[in-house]
């Protein structure tokens, strides 16, 4: 009779406070108590239930119809059954929506608690997690065998309570069934999917290994037998499976082994593993993102270098005669790229316009002449064509890789959702498991607690009204800050413009009245003036921006970071724009006025100089800004604080350098190699400086967001700008007439035209190629039109698909709501039926247990 007392208590509870979610725990407490006692009182009934046949069809589980037949689903008792209330609130309506039916009979309760929506992990791999829980529990029980009560840790009406009275035999058969089902699931997948699913299962390795064995050795026959038993209608199609699947299995094994060897090769390429680990262990994810970005850039450059090196530098170096340097090395060449470097594979001007052949080394003056083919060497290498296509392909592949990376990152880091759960995320997702150093761990927990306090205060005051005068003051401050930054940027840009013009005029003057008495060294050194000016602007102005930003007032630290990034970006983009104009508009348009033999080489040297200067200034900045500043502030000012590593600025410097490298690869095929060296040095230098001089940044840093932003910046202004410059040069600027692979042509693109004509004359079947070439490549308007059209179509289809998905989502949500209503309705009906079957309250429990055994 204890049960009925309990039940009444429960009813009282409900009537008292029905709305508070906290009190539901109490409600559930009484549930579980009730059920536990029932379980103790009537063990026989439950044993009987357990012997029921299993329904293995998972898909049917969400069917509402089963509500009336609890006996058919005994396996649900093993599902850690907590009444888990769904998001749409359907199962709990019995207490909220229908206060008049607040007393459920125990049979109803049992059914409710075995509803699939109330079990753990319904999403992907629901069975897996249930299986996992089950086996873990079983294993632990086998070790210690505690009493039944220990299993009701949950205050929910837990089905686990029944587990205690089950015989171990029953557990094992249950486990076997689950296993079988899992194995079957795995069997139906393709090999790669199988491995992926196996890896993603929340099971221990030893269990996975068992699965793996069972699926590759036993499972085929087992599953077939199983399928013949349970799904006779399918068995005929599987009759010839073993042979096929054996072949398939062996093929899969071979394929997998090759894949593994590829993978281990890849992992051996994993650069700076330990270095990255030390950095992340000490500074966390934020600073790590800088180094990972640096590594990404390094891989881009290695790719670019391997392409240009393989197809341009190597053939040219092999087939050409040795270097004929006229001047001895003076050391300045390393900075300017002039002197003996000018006539080397490093720069555009050195490359021949001939077709390189295997046995005839003599250079043909015109690559399009037909009688070349008569030379007895079979292998020939058309340098202009190779130059054109190598650069084009390198840019195309870089673009594809960039866009792909960006797409992936966007998918990962920006999931737009309206509901906010900042505090929860902070609690569960902000701990950086990578951090290992004791002081950093301490700092991290300090950071988290301050952030939590701030968030708490923010939630508490709920958008406190800022008085209008103060707000006005802030706004005017920000306006002032922005105008200062914009003004200084503009001033710098104008300065660079006039300075470059002045330097250009100076060069023209020198070229016109060449003074033999002037030392060539001075002339070389004067070329360095522009890079020095630009690099110092790049070094000093961000500092100024930071000073301005420290006075301004922004709502959030992330806003501050974005403002800093946009200011720096504006500066760099506009300076680079002016420089591009300087190179392509002034020098390339009129190379005669400078008496330049080869303007491409000159521009290539300029880019080389900028890259080197940028590197030198970064070294200086690291030394003075970080090392000496730390010494100064620690020794003289006796402050404990060290300088903070400015991630945003450092990353933008990297992007700037990479833009230069991309722009210069057309004129300086070896520039990626220089960039590789630069990045390698930079990595070790920055790492050492970081370890010695810096401390963990105190600002919260959304690493994944920022990585996405950085890759986007790398793609959009940087890569796109470089690509536009290179395309412009190839399409519309006349190459030098006396040097380089494209000498004698009007534009670089014509090399392709010559080749196509030549092909056409030798093989008339390829006439369509020239047609394609004329319309696609030479006529950029048609080409661009086509490209834009394809893009628009693709985007249109994408939006259509997304739109359709959105509609389906709304429909599904409606459906979920309807199902919730159905469930409510069915539960009430169920309860009504139980009420009818129960003649008096004293026989209530007996009645329900009979009910359940009747099913």
């Amino acid at each position, binding site marked *: 009779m204890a049960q009925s007392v309990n039940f009444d208590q429960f009813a009282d509870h409900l009537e008292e406070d029905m709305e508070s979610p906290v009190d539901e725990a109490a409600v559930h407490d009484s549930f579980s108590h009730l059920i536990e006692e029932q379980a103790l009182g009537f063990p026989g009934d439950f044993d009987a239930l357990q012997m029921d046949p299993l329904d293995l069809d998972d898909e049917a589980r969400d069917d509402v119809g089963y509500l009336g037949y609890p006996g058919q689903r005994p396996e649900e008792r093993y599902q850690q059954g907590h009444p888990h209330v769904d998001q749409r609130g359907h199962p709990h309506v019995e207490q909220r929506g229908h206060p008049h039916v607040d007393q459920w009979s125990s049979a109803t309760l049992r059914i409710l608690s075995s509803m699939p929506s109330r079990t753990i992990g319904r999403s992907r791999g629901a069975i897996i997690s249930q299986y996992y829980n089950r086996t873990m529990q079983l294993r632990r029980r086998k070790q210690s065998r505690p009493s039944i009560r220990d299993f009701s*840790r949950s205050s929910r009406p837990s089905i686990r309570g029944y587990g205690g009275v089950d015989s171990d035999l029953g557990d094992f058969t249950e486990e076997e069934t689950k296993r079988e089902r899992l194995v079957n699931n795995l069997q139906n997948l393709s090999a790669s999917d199988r491995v992926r699913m196996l890896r993603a299962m*929340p099971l221990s390795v030893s269990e996975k290994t068992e699965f793996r064995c069972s699926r590759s050795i036993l499972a085929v026959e087992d599953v077939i037998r199983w399928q013949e038993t349970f799904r006779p209608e399918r068995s005929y199609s599987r009759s010839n499976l073993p042979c096929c699947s054996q072949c398939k299995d062996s093929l899969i094994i071979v394929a997998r082994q090759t894949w593994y060897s590829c993978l281990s090769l890849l992992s051996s390429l994993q650069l700076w593993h330990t270095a990255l680990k030390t950095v992340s262990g000490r500074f966390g994810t934020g600073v790590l993102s800088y180094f990972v970005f640096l590594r990404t850039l390094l891989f881009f450059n290695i790719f670019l270098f391997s392409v240009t090196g393989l197809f341009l530098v190597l053939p040219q170096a092999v087939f050409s005669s040795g270097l004929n340097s006229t001047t001895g090395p003076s050391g300045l060449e390393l900075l300017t790229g002039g002197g003996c470097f000018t006539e080397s594979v490093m720069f555009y001007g050195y490359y021949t316009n001939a077709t390189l052949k295997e046995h005839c080394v003599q250079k043909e003056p015109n690559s399009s002449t037909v009688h070349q083919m008569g030379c007895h060497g079979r292998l020939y290498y058309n340098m202009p064509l190779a130059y054109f296509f190598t650069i084009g392909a390198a840019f195309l592949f870089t673009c594809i890789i960039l866009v792909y990376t960006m797409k992936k990152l966007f998918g990962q880091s920006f999931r737009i959702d309206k509901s906010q759960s900042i505090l929860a995320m902070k609690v569960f997702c902000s701990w950086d498991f990578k951090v290992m150093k004791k002081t950093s761990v301490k700092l991290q927990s300090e950071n988290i607690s301050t952030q939590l306090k701030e968030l708490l205060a923010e939630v508490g005051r709920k958008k406190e009204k800022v008085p209008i005068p103060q707000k006005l003051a802030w706004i005017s401050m920000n306006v002032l800050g922005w105008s200062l930054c914009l003004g200084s940027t503009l001033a710098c840009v104008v300065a660079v413009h006039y300075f470059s013009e002045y330097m250009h005029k100076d060069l023209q003057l020198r070229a016109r009245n060449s003074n033999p008495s002037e030392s060539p060294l001075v002339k070389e050194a004067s070329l360095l003036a522009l890079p020095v000016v630009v690099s110092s602007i790049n070094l000093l102005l961000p500092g100024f921006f930071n000073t301005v930003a420290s006075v301004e007032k922004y709502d959030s630290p992330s806003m501050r970071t974005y403002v800093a990034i946009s200011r720096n970006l504006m500066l760099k983009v506009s300076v680079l724009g002016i420089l591009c104009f300087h190179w392509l508009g002034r020098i390339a348009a009129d190379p005669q006025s400078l008496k330049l033999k080869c303007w491409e080489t000159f521009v290539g040297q300029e880019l080389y100089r900028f890259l080197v200067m940028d590197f030198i200034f970064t070294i200086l900045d690291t030394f003075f800004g970080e090392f000496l500043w730390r010494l100064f502030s620690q020794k003289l000012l006796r402050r404990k604080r060290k300088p903070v590593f400015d991630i945003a600025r450092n990353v933008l410097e990297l992007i700037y350098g990479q833009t230069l490298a991309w722009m210069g690869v057309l004129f300086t095929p070896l520039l990626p190699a220089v960039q590789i060296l630069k990045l390698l040095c930079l990595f070790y230098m920055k790492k050492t400086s970081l370890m010695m001089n810096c401390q963990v940044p105190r600002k919260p840093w959304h*690493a994944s967001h920022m990585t996405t932003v950085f890759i986007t910046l790398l793609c959009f202004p940087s890569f796109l700008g470089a690509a536009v410059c290179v395309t412009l040069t190839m399409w519309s600027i006349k190459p030098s007439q006396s040097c380089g692979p494209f000498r004698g042509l009007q534009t670089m693109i014509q090399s392709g035209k010559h080749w196509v004509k030549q092909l056409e004359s030798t093989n008339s079947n390829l006439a369509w190629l020239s047609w394609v070439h004329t319309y696609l490549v030479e006529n950029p308007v048609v080409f661009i039109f086509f490209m834009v059209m394809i893009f628009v179509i693709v985007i249109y289809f994408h939006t259509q698909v997304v739109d359709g998905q959105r509609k389906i989502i709304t429909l599904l949500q409606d459906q979920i709501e309807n199902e919730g209503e159905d469930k409510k309705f069915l539960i009430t009906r169920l309860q009504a039926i139980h009420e009818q079957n129960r003649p008096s309250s004293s026989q209530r429990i007996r009645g329900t247990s009979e009910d359940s055994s009747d099913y």
Partner: protein
Amino acid sequence: MGNKQTIFTPQQLDAYQDCTFFTRKEILRLYQRYRDLAPQLVPLDYTSKPDVKLPYQLIGSMPELKDNPFRQRIAEVFSEDGEGNMTLDDFLDMFSVLSEMAPRDLKAYYAFKIYDFNNDDFICKSDLENTLTKLTRSELTEDEVRMVSEKVLDEADLDNDGRLSLEDFQHMIVRAPDFLSTFHIRI
């Protein structure tokens, strides 16, 4: 090359590669790390699957875990006996889940287990308070802890049952882009 063959059979290595996110080389490296914890306990030959378990004291003293406030929970969740004593399989399992390659769902599942201190498959208020104490090294006052956990429950608990189920947790994780990068230990 010679000693690689003697530690594991090729089949074992294949199995490990299929079941974890590691390559052959990384598995061997992890084995070395495992062995370095107790060279006298761990045999050099794993072909016969010896039943070796390293106690939690050793596992928790790894530099990767030593200062992690959740080290005990991590070890408990991944160990087969639930007490933090780990076999090589458990060890591999742990770092596989914490590796870069593990998918979000898997990571979320184990993160849930780690934060579920009382193993009841729900993160309830006491779990949250436990988490907060560990996270902030008891720097928040009792009142603040209570308020934060109330707010967290309020935000993330979709079904209003006063505690977080795995579903609630996963739903929240999906919207936390940093989770993948922070729930990750480089080994």
